[in-house]
């Protein structure tokens, strides 16, 4: 039967619109589980460990979703790691363990996030500064402002706020619900709103977008505000787990570079115009699976980092090689 030929399967996969990163995700999961059964402790199939993979992915996942927005518009945001620190420190500083102050603190950090995103967007669109340099610069400014004011864990979040990090709704951790809620909203915005359509248009070809009458600057600025807001959400999630914020938690988590890597592994091109929330989530979960699998297999923490770097490169290389073949 010709229907079963390899070519046919390939073609079907290509037209099925399942991002190829999901194949990668499944492959990595299967390989991890098998290796774990043979060489590891054989516990990875356990639902609690699988859930843990997701919980670990929440912090990176939220900010990576925001990063997806700017990268679809062919921009980039390196300031997110420090914004996460700012959020964590500022919120625990403002809350001081008092549940009554939570709304005020949350409002303030979201305000800061919106401002940072606005400034990033304005520098990139109006001053025409390369996004890499612009957000590197604002990141440094945030880092400096933070380090000048705080040097260690400051304040604390009230216990009720920690529900966000540790709470469960039935068997399901609340953090996972939050991640999926954010992903669904983000996906909805990207695929169902005019803003989303315009974002793809600008990333795909700015000239075409402008000829079609889009206000490109405004769309890019909004994308940066969205990205900064997502970093604030990650910051809130992280501080709810740590109880208190310290200036180094953002950069130590490598949220800037890892969120970019996850987005790229998820199928978004650095040059913009393509990408999806689902792909980004898959990229994030791949990182989570690798972490867990390495733990289960007793792989050295540091060797983990090496393998991670190699896998990022190979994943991206597989896209470029594929697209070259399609082009020729």
């Amino acid at each position: 039967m010709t229907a079963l030929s390899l070519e046919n399967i390939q073609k079907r996969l290509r037209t099925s619109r399942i991002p190829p990163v999901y194949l990668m995700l499944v492959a990595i999961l299967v390989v991890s589980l098998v290796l774990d059964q043979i060489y590891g402790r054989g516990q990875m199939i356990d639902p609690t460990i699988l859930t843990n993979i997701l919980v670990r992915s929440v912090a990176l996942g939220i900010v990576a979703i925001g990063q997806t927005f700017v990268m679809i518009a062919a921009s980039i945001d390196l300031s997110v790691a420090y914004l996460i620190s700012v959020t964590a420190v500022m919120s625990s500083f403002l809350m001081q363990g008092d549940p009554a102050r939570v709304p005020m603190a949350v409002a303030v950090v979201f305000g800061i996030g919106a401002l940072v995103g606005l400034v990033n967007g304005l520098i990139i669109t109006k001053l025409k500064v390369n996004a890499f340099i612009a957000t590197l610069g604002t990141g440094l400014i945030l880092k400096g402002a933070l380090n000048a004011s705080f040097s260690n864990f400051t304040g604390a979040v009230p216990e009720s706020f920690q529900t966000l990090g540790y709470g469960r709704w039935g068997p399901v951790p609340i953090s996972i619900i939050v991640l999926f809620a954010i992903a669904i909203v983000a996906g909805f915005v990207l695929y169902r709103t005019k803003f989303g359509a315009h974002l793809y248009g600008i990333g795909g070809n700015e000239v075409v977008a402008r000829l079609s009458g889009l206000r490109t600057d405004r769309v890019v600025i909004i994308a940066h505000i969205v990205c900064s807001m997502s970093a604030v959400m990650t910051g809130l999630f992280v501080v709810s787990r740590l109880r208190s914020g310290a200036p180094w938690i953002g950069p130590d988590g490598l949220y800037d570079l890892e969120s970019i890597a996850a987005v790229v592994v998820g199928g978004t091109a650095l040059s913009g115009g393509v990408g999806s929330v689902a792909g980004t989530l898959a990229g994030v979960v791949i990182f989570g699976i690798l972490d867990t699998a390495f733990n289960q297999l007793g792989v050295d923490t540091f060797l983990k980092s090496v393998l991670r770097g190699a896998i990022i490169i190979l994943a991206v290389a597989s896209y470029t090689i594929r697209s070259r073949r399609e082009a020729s």
Partner: protein
Amino acid sequence: MTRENKPTNEPVMEVRNITKEFPGVKALDDVSVKFYPGEVHAVVGENGAGKSTLMKVMAGAYIADEGDVLLQGEKVQFPHPQVAQEQGVSIIYQELNLLPERTVAQNIFLGREPSRFGLVDSRALNEATLDVLERLDSEDTISPSAMLNTLSVAEQQIVEIAKAISFDSKVLIMDEPTAALSSNEVDILVRLVERLKARGIALIFISHRLKEVFDLADKITVLKDGQLVDTVNPKDVNTGDVIHMMVGRELNQFFPPLAEPGDIGDTVLSISDGANDFLKNINLELRAGEIVGVSGLQGSGRTELAEALFGAEPFKQGTLEINGLNTPVRSPAQAIKLNMGFVTEDRKSQGIFPNQSLRDNMLVTVRALQRLLAQVKRDGVRKNPDLVPTLGEQVDVRASGYDQEVQYLSGGNQQKVVLAKWLAPDTEVLIFDEPTRGIDVEAKASIHEMIRDLAKQGAAIMMVSSELPEIVGMSDRIIVMWDGTITGELPAKSSEAEIMVLATGYENGDKKDAELVMESKS
């Protein structure tokens, strides 16, 4: 003026006494044409005749210096193409303006998505897209949700047309819509044109393929040197007449004298049965001291031939001999080592290094042959330390100094720098692709003179050009391409009409028309 006389058939659009000047060129000179609804109007003329300028004036991309544009009898001025589009005048350029990674529907309605509270109403979007596609009779072949990059070029062109008519266009302008299409795909487009015509849209298209013009058009407007020659009904004329109206434009350019028989030396380069993905059956010889002109329509393979010889898109089959030795050329670096040079068509993306100085641009090719850590000589190489001033004088470049960055030069001077780059090594075979595109008349003449001088000094030259006067004026021998192969070779001083016949593919099919042309010529 004729309003009362023809109330039933008003022109939907009209240009009156349009004049448009660019520095050094009068692109349009007092041109007046009327375009009627439900009519297919072809605009023909040689390169530089002013066709594209006229279309751009009509679509709001240029503003005319003098004269009026009338839409349904009213004077209009379009400050921007978008304004023209909103008023029902759409233009489709040769290069497609679509997003490959988005769906058909998303492309057509980019920036105008039907929406409620910022949410795209995908059902309405789909329906609107289907509605537009239906008007083009393409709703069965193109799905609104198909990704654009899964469509063929012809289908993509239909999407582009759909995008244009989704503005409820009354006038649709197409710049060489068939240039990138295969003959099957052209048929699709032809049917589409019939549909649009039946809907009362005025269609205006530029084409170089006269066969299509006669198959499709209800009126033909011929432009020459920015002036209107005539607007004719294809029933009243034949191909030969139109060619005669187009060609024979006044030679305000002077070309240097052609080579004498004694000037032409031995064969330097020859290719037999050359073929690659674009080309087939290429047999060609280049001789020292001779300029071979390569003519052909866009997409005929003329640029691909140049790229193949230079190793940028190498031949996959065939025998390439240089100075009698079998030497396949697989990369530009190798070609340069073999003393070949290639002045590319697209100066900006393939020729110049905009942020570098004149001297670094001129010396890049000789330096490519040197060791990496060899010391840079400011003005040349060890054997020839004054190369830069020599070249600068030879090509007569005008700049404030050799340290100036090339991006600040005019197009003509940039082209001279590119030329100098290829003269820097002792080039024996020089390939030119559109050596004078987009540069002013004066610079043109001096580049022509330089090319002839190079031939006189013994270089074998191949010159690809879409400008017939340039081909006729410069070539010692002319080859004509069509559909990826060489369809004929003509001697020096052949007429433009003879070239046209080979280039439009008539010798393959329509013998009668070809003979007609030849007769009327002789």
